[in-house]
């Protein structure tokens, strides 16, 4: 028995503007448990990159430690990658981001990596507005160490062995809105129709984009008393509306009910079209968004979709006025101003 995915693809498989098929964006075959939500997210990332005609060599995948952090091996085989120390992915991303503004940064992390050991790092990456897509593949459990509770596990959610959870969860999405993240969405690995436009929007967004994706752990947290199981999320999922990603130069083709549609322009000229289900909700108003999330939480719902967006904020590199040229490409004559300038500086000090 071979576990290699055969190289054959469907002869009629669609190609994108680069002449590539979806299969060209794949990575190694996953070694995660069969049915892991993380694999669905990898597939959604593959689909998004395919649809956005992204060239793999212009992407850097960064991760820490955990099941989620293994995932970058399973997509975009030809991209750059850095697998860092536990919880330290945001620092590496920050550095890389300043060193080369040309790449797109995909940080892949989990609830353990971001809400526990790396919480301090997570917070500061948002505070500094690092231009990246930050995926939290959130399953509420430490799958790699046999299913202990993680910091995002809901209070009422027991573990696989029936033990109670004693502590309240951290909600990374509301935290990110409060800290000033400029693109915050929550989604579910099992709802690809919702997830893919959100990932595409995040990839085209300039600034820190957080995707808190509930991703069931089939081995340790997919039981009846779990609040992060496939069944629970399907029963309690409430979307803020339907999000469509509209690429640059294309018109919105879906028709919406009058008054319910919101159009949000992204940095590169592409658009997100949002059909809201509730008039009280506005993703461009952080206060309203937070209230709405809390309301739904009280109702026992898991609110998903694009929760908050601000496309006007400055990112880290703009704030620091970092050079547009990647550091690796800066030549000696640019980096060293020469003795004449040095003399001028010295004289100005005397």
């Amino acid at each position, binding site marked *: *028995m*071979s*576990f*290699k*995915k*055969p*190289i*054959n*693809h*469907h*002869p*009629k*498989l*669609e190609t994108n503007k680069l002449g590539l098929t979806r*299969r060209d964006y794949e990575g190694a*075959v*996953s070694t995660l*448990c*069969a*049915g*892991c*939500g993380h*694999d*669905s997210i*990898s*597939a959604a990332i593959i689909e998004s990159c395919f649809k956005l005609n992204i060239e793999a060599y212009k992407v850097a995948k960064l991760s820490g430690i955990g099941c989620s952090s293994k995932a970058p091996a399973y997509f975009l085989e030809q991209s750059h990658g850095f697998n860092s120390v536990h919880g330290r992915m945001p620092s590496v991303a920050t550095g890389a981001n300043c060193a080369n503004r040309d790449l797109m940064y995909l940080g892949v992390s989990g609830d353990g990596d971001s809400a526990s050991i790396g919480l301090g790092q997570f917070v500061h990456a948002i505070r500094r507005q690092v231009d990246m897509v930050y995926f939290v593949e959130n399953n509420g459990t430490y799958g790699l160490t046999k299913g202990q509770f993680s910091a995002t596990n809901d209070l009422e959610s027991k573990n696989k062995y029936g033990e109670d959870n004693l502590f309240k969860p951290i909600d990374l999405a509301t935290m990110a809105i409060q800290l000033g993240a400029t693109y915050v969405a929550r989604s579910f*690995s*099992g709802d*690809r129709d919702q997830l893919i436009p959100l990932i595409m929007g995040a990839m085209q967004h300039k600034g820190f984009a957080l995707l808190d994706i509930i991703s*069931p752990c*089939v081995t340790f947290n*997919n039981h009846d008393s779990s609040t992060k199981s*496939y*069944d629970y999320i*399907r029963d309690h999922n409430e979307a803020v509306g339907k999000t469509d990603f509209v690429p640059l130069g294309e018109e919105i083709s879906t028709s919406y009910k009058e008054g319910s549609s919101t159009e949000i322009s992204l940095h590169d000229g592409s658009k997100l079209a949002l059909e809201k289900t509730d008039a009280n909700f506005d993703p461009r108003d952080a206060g309203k968004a937070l209230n709405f999330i809390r309301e739904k939480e009280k109702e026992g719902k898991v609110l998903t979709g694009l929760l908050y967006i601000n496309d006007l904020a400055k990112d880290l590199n703009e704030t620091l006025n970092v050079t547009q040229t990647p550091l690796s490409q800066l030549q000696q004559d640019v980096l060293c101003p020469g003795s004449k300038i040095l003399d001028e500086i010295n004289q100005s000090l005397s």
Partner: protein
Amino acid sequence: MEDKKYLYKRNNIWWVKVAVPKSQRDKFGYDLRQTTGKSDLNEARSVRNHIVESLKSKFSETEKYVPLPSTKFMEKTNIDNPQYFHKVVDCQYACPAHTNVPEYIRLIAQKKYTDAYMLNWESNVFPGILGRVCDRPCEPACRRGRTHEKSVAICRLKRVTYDYKDDVEKYIPQSPKVKNGKRIALIGAGPASLTVARDLLPLGYECTIFEKDHKAGGLMRTNIPSFRLPADVLDEEIYRIINMGAELKLNSYIEKLKPVIDDYDSVFIGTGAPKGKDLKLKGREISSENIHIGIDWLTSIAFEHVKKIGKKVIVIGGGNTAMDCCRSALRLGATDVKVTVRSPFSQMKASEWEIEETMEEGIPILDNTSPKEFLFDDKGKLYGMKFEKMQQVEADGRKKMQSTGEEITIECDDVLLAIGQENAFPWIEKNIGIEFGEWEMPVVDKLTMQSTHPKVFFGGDSAWGPENIIWAVSHGHQAAISIDNFCSGVSLKDRPAPVTNLVSQKMGIHEWSYDNDVSQEKRISVPHEELSKSLKNLKTEVELGFDEELALEEAQRCLNCDMQTVFEDDLCIECDACVDICPTDCINFVDNDVEEKVRDKLRVPALNLDQSLYVSGKLKTGRRMVKDEDMCVHCGLCAERCPTGAWDIKRNAYKESHTLTNKIKAKEVA
């Protein structure tokens, strides 16, 4: 003018002809003629009107009950229907004898050649013969032709089972000592009759085979040259059946059928299509010395009556017989052999590989060349033929051949005519209850092979005209079932169901009992004897067959289409793992709709309408799992990556029932 065409006389009887529209023929048959007994046009008209009216009312009845397909949502696929998974195994489904191809290819890979041979023998009876000269309907059907470039060399692998098997005699069932008292006459010792004998002998039937020639084998012996099919292979597989206990009467031409019918409990006619078509052109009547009917000429070579031919030979015709004729002529000393075909090259009837081999031997094929006249000198000796060049034109949406006006003359010493074969039953009396229909062909039931005389069955080429060996075998199996039913007083419609067995291949975690690696090797071509050697001797076999190493490599190309992906609705948690892992994007979770729309909304639209969609019941989210069977490479990764075992890989062993399997089963139950 009065239309009298539907009133006609045949065999001294007046008939009224009523043809059924093409679209309705599956349901109502081809032709609903009735006899009026006399040549009365008025009566004929009223009979005809009556038939037409009753037929029309049947049309509307059936239409009423069939809802329009475009408004009906898809239903859950019934995988309990043995034909569903059978159809997924493209090669087995395409084979008239439904040989389990993937299974014997796996056995070859395991070097179990004897087992592989017996598996073939059970369904197609002549693995050694068919492994060389089968028409191979399986190969164009092979899934690999869709997922990769070329199909698996199924036929060549079949030959491997013959070439490398051990002694199989101990596995061959014998006729029991105590017979069941029924005597069956089989007329013609070709593949159809031999198959019937093989199926009936172990049940205790006494089978007598009548053959007009002095050797058994029928057209397999007389019309296939020995450089393609050596005589020892033929003898071995024919006598394997005769030795089971059949009585073979050689040199026994049946001149009258009636006495045979009276003498036996049942009669099977497998006399082939033995009459080669003649070409009645200008000059044909002058002399026939150097103009030969292809199949008769091949027969004369097979029986060594003909040992040479002129230097320059023209072969007329584009079928397999033409290919055999020109290659035989080359081996009998001709130096300049040409084949002329009336149609364009691309529409030649001969099998692709036979055309290839012909051309490899340096024989030119002149297409769009239609014969016009035989040319003779003053002494009445043939010296050439006149042809006219043709072109294909399209008129009224149909392709038609039209003369370009250009004429060419080709010199020759001999002409071989290979323009088709016909059935001929001069020995069947006209008034014994065997009805003949259009083209003087017997009226034979498509399912039971029974003629209009209940005791008489037809099969092979004699039933519906020239086909090929594998069809004759298939007819033989069906006729044997019918004869067995007939002699046991069971309704002929009561036929044994196919035997299927669907077994999970899971052996443990990450452990499946088959090799799922998809080989990327190109199709391996079979080694040939050097031309300098093979052209010298008529009996030197051209194809050498695969050796064990090549056979293994070719066997690895098989995609194991019998390893079925089986989906259990209740277990699915819709995690999409199967969707993501499927290399060919077969698996989808979509909302139900009418078939056309479902096909359209899959990740890769399912445009190959010949291939089924596997549709689950309603899942928790209301969606359905829809798998397009078209491009599945049976890698099993969907089952491997399924967390709940909703997908399983099950081996589907499908076997058509023969009389033999039926009786063995009955015995087991008892």
